[in-house]
């Protein structure tokens, strides 16, 4: 393991300097759906969204807000949701987080975790509405999916930090 970079004391880095690992992680997260499993219920957490939120909350200058649109478009192409669903929801998430950054300036990880879980819950619920699945009997699976995604958020943040250190130490 390389020596940790003192993140907050370092010279301000130019914005969006480490976008490559962030984009790569989001794309790989979206591509988790190509695993050879034929699901009968929605059980897989939305890893693409999870990676996006983890990166954005870990480093506010990881990705610009407009990056959510192309990344969401790719997620829609592989996720089975109607095209535009993740594109819209992810864009709204990142814009909302930018607004939140000006209001709630001093945050600790617990608040970030709560924010991420709320965002994931909102995205999953609205994704269901967008897919026209309101009468479907998927309340239970969706709750489980949300809970699992929320529990995976700290691990995803660790992964982001690891990737960040790798890129910064290079």
């Amino acid at each position, binding site marked *: 393991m390389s020596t940790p970079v003192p993140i*907050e004391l370092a010279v*301000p*880095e*130019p914005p969006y300097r480490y976008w490559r690992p962030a984009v790569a992680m989001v794309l790989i997260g979206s*591509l*988790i*759906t*190509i*695993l*050879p*499993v*034929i*699901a*009968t*219920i*929605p*059980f*897989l957490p*939305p890893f693409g969204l999870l990676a996006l939120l983890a990166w954005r909350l870990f*480093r*506010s200058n990881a990705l*610009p*807000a*407009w990056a*959510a*649109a192309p990344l*969401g*478009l*790719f997620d829609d*192409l592989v*996720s*089975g*949701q*109607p*095209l*535009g*669903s993740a*594109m*819209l929801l992810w*864009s*709204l998430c*990142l*814009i909302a987080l*930018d607004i939140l*950054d000006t209001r709630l300036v*001093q945050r*600790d*990880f617990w608040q*970030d975790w709560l924010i991420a879980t709320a965002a994931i819950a909102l995205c999953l619920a609205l*994704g*269901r509405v*967008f897919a*026209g*699945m309101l*009468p*479907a*009997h*998927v309340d*239970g*699976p969706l709750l489980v999916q949300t809970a699992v995604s929320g529990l995976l958020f700290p691990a995803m943040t660790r992964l982001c930090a690891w990737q960040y250190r790798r890129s910064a130490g290079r």
Partner: protein
Amino acid sequence: MAPQRDRRPGFSRRAQYGLFLGYVAAAAGALIAAALLLLSTFHPAGFAAARGVVREGTAPVSLGLRHVRDFLASGPAAVAEHFQTASDNRRLLAQRKQDEALVQRARLLVRENARLRRLLEVRELPVEAVATARLVSSSASSTRRYAVLAAGYHQGVRSGQPVRGPEGLLGRVVETSANTARVVLLTDPDSVIPVRRTRDGLPAIASGRGDGFVDVRSANVANAPFLAGDIFVTSGIGGIYPPGIPVARVLQNARDTATSRVFAQPDRSDFALVLRTFLPPLPPPAAFPAPAASPVPAPAPDAVP
């Protein structure tokens, strides 16, 4: 965490404009997304080509992973089989002896049935298989229940064709690309399948619930009673699914709407069979015969007799 101020543009005009343009782009992206969402809500097959391109890339990877998974999963099964072979053999030989009389009777019945059908001049439509392929991946993170089939347009798969597994009906093809297709499973909430009860031929409709089960509701009788264990097969009504493919078994006694477990196990079945659409839509009638055309038009290969 201390606030990260490195995104503030400071006094640089260029940085300020850059930040502003970034937000303009983000808002534009959201608006485009909303427009795309509206389009795909009212015309779900609209972006099939884009999805098909991505699927062409991902399906081979999924297929490779599937082979790895099958290889790893086959190890324990092979060991168990090795130790059970002798006892299985004894059991199967005994069962064959028991079933011999039954097979004899079934053979007689088949012959008699064929004779009676000839007498009645019932014409059966052949159920032809188009392609055999694996289901390689699915929309496991979405509320929709789609699967990706590793056969597409080049293998003769067309959108609308029914797909079955060894145990029963799996679903229907909705989109095709060159070598892959997208299948909507029968557990998807948008899937509706006309079925009938094997016991008495009661017509019913099986619609997906989204949680791995289907709802079976009677098609013509109000308050029709369903008993636990009732088996439903496709009826052939509607012309998409050939009749007689097992669909679902009722879980509990119910009236009007019964939650049922589907027979097909898309995750465990090795192969999926794509069938020809049972009754393809009739070609539009020609407005007037062209004089230069041949007098007898060639019959379509799978037209209704």
